[in-house]
């Protein structure tokens, strides 16, 4: 083992039961450097990190062969051969780990201060009062405001980003030499992700730690890594310094993966969204398939398909013995927009911005507090039952999680046929079966798949099934609510292309709800940016992305990690949290007014302090 290396994994094999999950994996981590392990789902990247921590045994896996050498002072120790007792001393003290889900990795019944104090008294042998002081210092270290007060708070009182920072503080409690971060920012909004990434980078410099950063996001890799290991199906594909990997990928798989990543700014100078050829691997060689064509499908000269006028949706929060309303979630406030036939309108914003609520209201899954939804000139409120039912046929909804949006007990054929039978579009069994087969083939599956159950399919295939189901009733508008967020990038690129192909073919309109700015840039004709339930900027995709005018839009765009290590830049960092849409009764938010900044490009008026992220957190 080279003296500059802190950790060296040699020919590691890990299996769960009969299936080998990690095969002959070799890589090493230099002291004080960041190694990113990148791969799609099922690549074995998380299992690798669990193997280093020797947590795989805990999950019924086993390390079959290989060494995990760790430099401990002058000695090298093989973590793979260590007994449980010795390993406990390594965990936390030498190597610490942070996980993806900050919501579940803190114990909800203890104050966070107590949870940090526990680690300090256990590992460092500090007295309780000294540990409490140290805990406060750690919370300061991860840039949490009011650290002293936070010690006595419970996890549910903190936002996701704050919880992840508490997790980092806990991981750093014993000054580990190696930090393993397993998708630490995947569950967070982009602006919060940018904060967390910069905190990890700063702390790494200050403490001289090495970091193993596990992620599926090439943008994050370009942002943080010194070296990169690309994994696929349990094997290492290639390892290279980050600049080399992005500039000159050696292996076909890496090239295909990089080409599938949507890059923010790649559509600069173009008015319309574009279908681009996909790079797929065929016979171990990357090949380009598909067409390159601008999508001129939007028909702005026609009347809008759906109009929303001054939509307000609020949710009451009841507290106390008699369930009186004390607070309200102001999910949507005075939103007005039009969706034209054949266009893709993107709603972007972070969690709590109300983007899903707008989609749910159009789909009649949610009743508006006030305001109107107008379909082809007729307000929803004035519609008869039959007309409302017809609206449910003409507007379809695709959900984020393809694993949750199909009934596990029904065959794929049943699910795809359900809109047809519900609306009585076809009357005999044979015709329905034919149509289902046709739809499945249309989305790139085969007709035999109708007999199978959802659990037999991968995430991408399930999302295709959901698209087939949405197409079954011949809709004019499809609301895609984060429909690409749960998918791997290569699958995501294929689904984006499928969406665009269907738009060309059927002149579909999409309401595309997403937090992913790069995907939005690829797909949409027009964009509306939401912040705390109000539109702060809307206009053509080109106007919003190339001349962002509102400070929030600018901040959102600058927070997106760009998959280009040469483009690391200083960004506009936010100090606090995303403000909460929960307000006390009577404390109504100010309604921003939109001004036409350029033809078709509307920007909200900004008061001096208006869209400043507030450092406050809500209970």
């Amino acid at each position, binding site marked *: 083992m080279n003296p500059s290396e802190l950790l060296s994994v040699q020919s590691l094999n890990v299996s769960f*039961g*009969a*299936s080998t999950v990690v095969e002959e994996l070799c890589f090493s981590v230099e002291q004080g450097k960041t190694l990113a392990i990148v791969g799609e789902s099922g690549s074995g990247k998380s299992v690798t990190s669990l193997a280093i921590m020797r947590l795989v045994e805990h999950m019924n896996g086993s390390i079959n062969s290989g060494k995990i050498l760790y430099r401990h002072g002058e000695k090298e120790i093989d973590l793979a051969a260590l007994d449980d007792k010795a390993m406990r001393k390594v965990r936390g003290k030498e190597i610490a780990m942070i996980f993806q889900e900050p919501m579940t990795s803190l114990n909800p019944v203890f104050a966070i201060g107590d949870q940090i104090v526990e680690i300090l008294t256990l590992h460092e042998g500090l007295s309780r009062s000294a540990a409490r002081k140290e805990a406060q210092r750690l919370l300061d270290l991860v840039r949490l405001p009011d650290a002293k007060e936070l010690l006595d708070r419970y996890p549910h009182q903190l936002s996701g980003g704050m919880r992840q920072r508490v997790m980092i503080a806990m991981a750093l409690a014993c000054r580990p030499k190696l930090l393993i971060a397993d998708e630490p920012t995947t569950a967070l909004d982009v602006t919060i992700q940018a904060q967390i990434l910069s905190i990890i980078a700063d702390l790494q410099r200050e403490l001289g730690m090495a970091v193993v950063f596990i992620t599926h996001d090439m943008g994050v890799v370009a942002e943080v890594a010194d070296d990169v290991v690309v994994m696929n199906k349990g094997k290492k594909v290639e390892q290279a310094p980050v600049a080399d990997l992005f500039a000159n990928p050696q292996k076909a798989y890496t090239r295909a993966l990089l080409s599938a990543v949507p890059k923010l700014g790649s559509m600069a100078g173009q008015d319309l969204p574009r279908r681009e050829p996909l790079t797929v691997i065929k016979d171990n060689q990357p090949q380009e398939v598909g067409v390159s064509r601008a999508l001129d499908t939007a028909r702005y000269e026609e009347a809008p398909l759906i109009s929303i006028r001054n939509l307000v949706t609020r949710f009451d929060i009841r507290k106390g013995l008699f369930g009186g309303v004390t607070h309200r979630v102001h999910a949507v406030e005075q939103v007005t927009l039009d969706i034209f036939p054949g266009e893709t309108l993107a709603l972007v914003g972070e969690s709590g911005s109300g983007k899903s609520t707008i989609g749910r209201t159009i*789909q*009649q*899954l949610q009743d508006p507090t006030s305001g109107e939804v107008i379909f082809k000139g007729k307000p929803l409120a004035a519609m008869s039952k039959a007309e409302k*039912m017809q609206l*449910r*046929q003409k507007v*379809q*909804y695709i*959900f*984020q*999680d393809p694993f*949750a*949006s*199909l*009934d*596990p*007990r*029904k*065959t794929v054929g049943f699910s795809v046929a*359900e*809109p047809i039978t*519900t*609306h009585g579009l076809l009357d005999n069994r044979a015709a329905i079966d034919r149509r289902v087969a046709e739809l499945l083939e249309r989305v*790139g*599956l*085969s007709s035999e*798949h109708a007999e199978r*159950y959802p*659990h*037999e*399919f*991968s995430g*991408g*295939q399930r999302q*295709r099934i*959901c698209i087939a*189901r949405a197409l079954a*009733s011949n809709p004019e508008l499809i609301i895609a609510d984060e429909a690409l967020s749960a998918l791997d990038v290569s699958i995501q690129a*294929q689904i984006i292309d499928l969406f665009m192909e269907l738009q060309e073919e059927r002149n579909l309109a999409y309401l595309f709800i997403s937090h992913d700015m790069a995907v939005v840039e690829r797909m949409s004709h027009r964009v509306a940016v939401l912040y705390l339930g109000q539109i702060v900027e809307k206009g053509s995709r080109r106007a919003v992305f190339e001349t962002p005018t509102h400070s929030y839009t600018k901040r959102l765009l600058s927070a997106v990690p760009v998959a280009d290590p040469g483009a690391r830049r200083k960004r506009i960092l936010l100090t606090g949290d995303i403000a909460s849409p929960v307000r006390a009764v009577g404390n109504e938010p100010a309604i921003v007014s939109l001004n036409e900044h350029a033809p078709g490009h509307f920007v909200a008026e900004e008061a001096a302090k208006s869209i400043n992220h507030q450092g406050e957190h809500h209970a």
Partner: protein
Amino acid sequence: MANSSASSNAPAKKLNLSRFKNLEFVLGILLAGGIGLAVALSWLLFPDGGRAVNLMARLTPPFADPAHLLGTDPLGRDILARVIIGGRISLTVGIVSTAGAVIIGVIMGLIAGYYRGIWDMVVMRFADIQLALPFILLAITFIAIIGGGLVNTIILLIVSQWVQYARLVRGSVLALREREFVQSARAIGVKDINIILRHLLPNLLGPVIVLMTINVANNILLESSLTFLGLGVDPTIPSWGGMLAEGRTYLQTAWWISVFPGVAILLTVLGLNLLGDWLRDTLDPTGRTRI
């Protein structure tokens, strides 16, 4: 793209599991079916209804006399005959009352969980009140008003047991109705009744079936407590629970009087349990057990 996602090692695992599942089914059918058949044929096997008293042969131990294979009770009545005949009452009460409670409980739970609001309030507060009432108090009141007998005992058991199912189902529905596939069905415009029958009901049957198999045994024993207190079925008709209670006083001298009806209950419940497990897993296409 259209490749199957099943991993290569799955078939081997599935095969082992299915062999075990088949064993579960065969054993379940043998036990529950065998006992059911014997009880159904008891009219032919023992035309005297197990009432034949033979004081000369009282308290014969089991396997001592080929005429009384499982021994006799203090009145010299044949235990084997009485166990099989006793199954008539016990199985009828256990199965019918459980089925009734399941039907009412599941319907109430579905309505309360799916529609929430006033339905939920009414059903659940009623359930809470009923859970707070001790069973014996409820039983005495109930029997005092409408009288004893087989049918009334069954009704009493249904009334006292449906609450558990309602609570269980309501809980599952509350979780399920927020799941995206239910939302997705609503988005398409599927009618409430179809959402409930096609999407909710199949997804919550698993835990209901488990509770059901336990409940059958429980109800067989409750019937005997009622009979013991003089609130249940006519005590002169043998039932498993009744025989258990009778044998209590002889437990040290003639263990077989209560042990054999106990074994009958045990085997029935075991058989139903195995069948229930098999049914639950067969209904679940993912092949995973989720409770």
